[in-house]
């Protein structure tokens, strides 16, 4: 990875708009601007069409002989399958309201990162083949024909969009660039173009059950280790039920939480919470992945990876599913799963919290509940003994992940939980939270190292908002409910707002959770000393609670 | 077709609205002539008929400006004839039938000049 320029330099080095018309500008594939291509054998084993070795930096991408026909046909096919695509191709008026809503545009000032122009890349091709004006007037009406440079351009910009849907919020017609990006990526996969960082997890998830390719025995081993850590901290070793038949609940979370710091602390939080509740639940090594990188590939791949959840729910004869903190996982679960792989197996029932008796009517059909909904309900019914003072050394803010906010509407549940477990909660500025939240800059499978500078650019709006509350209110922590965020926000915070730590919501819950029979806590889940735990009062406990809400 | 019910309903509403200029006219009468009764045997007004039909309001505005702002009471028409600028004594002398002249076109075309808030409508009792 090349060394990153200083933040000021990063902003100052954003180039002006090119003089040429956008139809004439070609992307330059310099290192750091593109993700590494998927490997041929990965694509083969997944039965993806036209697998081949290729290099984005090379002139020739080794497209199949009849690549143009493949793409034209695939495009026509997607138009028949998705009304959204037809509509979004037809009705954009180029009012430009979306332009500065995109974090990639703000960070790069590349005009083709304006959502309108990103869509226009595809729209120009649509015009030629599917509209009268385009057929008649050609380039004058913004129509162009397929050529290999156009394919490269589509690839370049389809992987500079994190499908965060922020533009669709502001669009007067609701044009959703995520929808367009998804379909462009799907088209590119038709001619064998994909990226390693997405396809490798897809392969792993497909054959071992999770993105990281952790095999069942190792998965168990890691979770046991995390349970051991819980014991070190609390004196209580939480249960770790695996593949247990007839449990009431099957719990699924992104595998990143089992594997990567700081996600593991969130995972420990889950274990401790479930243990304290004496929840009749199970984990599964087969359906051990909540995330779904297939959703960054094709609709069918998303369906394929997602199918395991209901299959495992049926095999284990569980009543309902509980889902951990994750962004795109919840986009899939909330808006796609039931359609993909429903109806649910007969053994499942509409979810009921065994602790509070609350029926989750809003999940009556998918029968899958978000952990933030579950925990908020517990707290509301006073079922958890919490000592938020243990989180007094942090002043936290909350990062809404794109998918739960704009693809689900999960906004207040995590805040409700967060306020119950932390005394110091500060919101970031209103144009950067809730439904207007900014992406971490590396969602939708772009959280790869080779494009770190691009990620930092795209993360600029988020980083800036974080820096603002850091400097104004002394915020030193950012909670989030997304496994990709937990992987991508630490470097982002490190770059834009050094000194801010990142954690999942349930790490903070578990820090505050007073467990029955626990030993006195002297350290938090990260095994760092708790200030004031040795009996002293915390020296300067910040008292800025609830400002900026 | 998917969501056929909603789409067809939408199309029907669309067609009904877009053809409204065609069917709305059929709710009332047809309008084939103005029905105005020109006064006397004169072939021309101050200016020729075509000009007067289109531009009479402009002429009236001009006359108003000439008479009241410039104190000029003489108007020379295109054919060289001199006219005294006066609504009461020139225009309304001939056009004394408000109902069958002025109002005919004004009502049909929803023209509501506020001349008559000050000026006396010709033919009305004083």
């Amino acid at each position, binding site marked *: 990875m090349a060394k990153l320029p200083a933040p*000021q330099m990063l902003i100052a080095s954003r180039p002006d708009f090119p003089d040429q018309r956008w139809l004439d500008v070609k992307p330059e594939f310099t290192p750091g601007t593109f993700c590494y291509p998927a490997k041929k054998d990965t694509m083969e084993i997944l039965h993806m069409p036209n697998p081949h070795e290729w290099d984005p930096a090379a002139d020739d991408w080794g497209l199949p002989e009849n690549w143009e026909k493949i793409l034209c046909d695939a495009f026509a096919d997607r138009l028949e399958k998705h009304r959204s695509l037809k509509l979004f191709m037809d009705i954009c008026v180029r009012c430009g309201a979306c332009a500065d809503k995109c974090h990639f545009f703000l960070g790069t000032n590349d005009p083709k990162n304006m959502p309108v122009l990103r869509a226009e890349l595809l729209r120009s091709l649509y015009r030629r083949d599917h509209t009268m004006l385009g057929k008649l007037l050609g380039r004058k*009406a913004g129509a162009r024909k397929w050529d290999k440079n156009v394919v490269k351009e589509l690839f370049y910009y389809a992987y500079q969009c994190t499908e965060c849907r922020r533009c669709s919020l502001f669009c007067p017609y609701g044009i959703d660039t995520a929808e367009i990006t998804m379909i462009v990526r799907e088209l590119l996969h038709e001619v064998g173009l994909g990226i390693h960082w997405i396809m490798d997890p897809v392969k792993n998830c497909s054959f071992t059950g999770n993105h990281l390719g952790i095999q*069942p025995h190792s998965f168990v081993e890691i979770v046991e280790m995390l349970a051991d850590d819980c014991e070190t901290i609390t004196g209580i070793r939480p249960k770790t039920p695996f593949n247990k038949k007839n449990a009431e609940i099957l719990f699924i979370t992104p595998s990143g939480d089992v594997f990567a710091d700081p996600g593991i602390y969130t995972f420990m939080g889950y274990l401790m919470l479930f243990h304290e509740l004496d929840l009749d639940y199970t984990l599964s090594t087969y359906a051990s992945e909540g995330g779904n990188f297939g959703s960054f590939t094709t609709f069918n791949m998303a369906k*394929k990876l997602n199918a395991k959840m209901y299959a495992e729910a049926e095999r284990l004869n569980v009543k309902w599913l509980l889902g951990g903190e994750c962004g795109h996982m919840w986009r899939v679960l909330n808006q796609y799963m*039931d359609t993909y792989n429903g109806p649910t197996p007969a053994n499942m029932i509409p979810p009921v919290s065994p602790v509070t008796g609350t029926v989750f009517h809003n999940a009556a059909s998918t029968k899958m509940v978000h952990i933030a909904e579950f925990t908020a309900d517990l707290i509301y019914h006073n079922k958890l003994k919490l000592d938020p003072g243990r989180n007094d050394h942090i002043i936290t803010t909350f990062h809404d992940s794109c998918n739960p906010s704009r693809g689900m*509407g999960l906004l207040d549940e995590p805040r409700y939980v967060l306020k119950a477990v932390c005394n110091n909660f500060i919101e970031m500025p209103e144009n950067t939270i809730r*439904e207007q939240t900014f992406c971490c800059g590396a969602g939708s499978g772009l959280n790869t190292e080779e494009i770190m500078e691009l990620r930092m650019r795209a993360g600029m*709006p988020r980083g800036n908002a974080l820096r603002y509350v850091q400097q104004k209110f002394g915020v030193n922590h950012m909670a989030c409910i997304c496994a990709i965020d937990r992987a991508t926000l630490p470097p982002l915070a490190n770059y834009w707002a050094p000194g801010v730590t990142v954690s999942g919501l349930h790490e903070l819950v578990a820090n505050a959770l007073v467990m029955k029979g626990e030993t006195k806590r002297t350290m938090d889940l990260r095994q760092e000393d708790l200030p004031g735990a040795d009996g002293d009062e915390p020296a300067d406990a910040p008292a800025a609670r609830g400002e900026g809400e | 077709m998917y969501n056929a019910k909603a789409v067809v309903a939408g199309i029907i509403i669309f067609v009904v609205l877009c053809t409204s200029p065609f069917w709305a006219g059929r709710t009332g009468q047809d*309008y084939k002539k103005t029905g105005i009764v020109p006064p006397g045997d004169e072939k021309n007004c101050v200016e020729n008929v075509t000009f007067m039909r289109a531009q009479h309001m402009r002429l009236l505005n001009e006359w108003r400006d000439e008479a009241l702002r410039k104190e000029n009471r003489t108007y020379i028409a295109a054919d060289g004839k001199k006219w005294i600028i006066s609504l009461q004594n020139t225009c309304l002398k001939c056009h004394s039938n408000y109902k069958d002249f002025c109002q005919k076109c004004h009502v*049909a075309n929803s023209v509501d000049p506020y001349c008559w808030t000050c000026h006396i409508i010709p033919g009305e009792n004083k």
Partner: protein
Amino acid sequence: MFSSLLLVLLIGAVAWAGAAAGFASLFGAALPYAATVIFIVGMIRRMTYWATSPVPFCIPTTAGQEQSLAFIRQAKIDCPSSSAGVFARMFLEVACFRSLFRNTRASVRGRDSATAGLSIVYYSSKWLWFFALVFHYCFLLVFIRHFRFFMEPAPSCISFLESLDGIMQTGSPRFFWTGALLLIALLFLLGRRIFNERLRYISLLNDYFPLWLLIGIAGTGVCLRYFDKTDIATVKIFIMGVTHFAPVSPEGIAPLFFVHITLVCALLLYLPFSKLAHMAGVFFSPTRNLRADSRRTRRINPWNPPKQYFTYAEYEDAYRDAMAEAGLPLEKQPDKSAG
């Protein structure tokens, strides 16, 4: 930009010359018939074209709190879980341009002492919303006002509308606000395409042409009312003839009127084949017109492919020994002899 202006001027010039040369009926009657038919058929085809593709997934953009726990307040309009909520959302979208109302302008500042040289400031930016709204409503009102030429007698509601429109009682004929505001809004929309760098970069012929066309329509309309007048009684007789499918002679009507009509026809002809189809398209938008209840009600995808995935049985076959060793429960015990 200039080519589209020239195109509009050309259309106008052809209509003027044609009308002056005695082909007024062609531009005043034949063209409107053709344009209306093509417009209506074109729009129906556009709508059925959209409708022949399904909306396979439930993909509303949730712009507020979902419906979940009883103590969490749902944003019933921005994240509607009921049809009434969707109706309200769509109504606000179509009638008030709610999404555009959210518009902000992000300004990236290189130097700012408060944040040590870095900041992005988000300003509320409602000009686009305001002028877009002004344009659309004025256009609608102007269209409605024209019904005085379509109906005999002119309905009283039109007179009422006119009295409101001309409420300032400026000039005679009375000055109508809608006409002027329409032009001002159009000039704003055109101006931002010309003077805003981003807009200029994304704008195409297809963007300038309808703007010039609308400016042409509004401009000729304003001219016909205040400047180059024509005898509207004759115009109404002519229009009523056209709408009753019995066109009469266009004798005595100024050529400018036919320019006005021709530009309107050009708009009708252009509309179904262009971005202006958004007038119908906005109702179809799946990110706005769907209920956010995807976990409560299952949506059916008509082309849902068959399930194909790595099954548990295959998985256990692949990892049975390791799983047994880790003490995981198995469906089938490992074959001892093979191990």
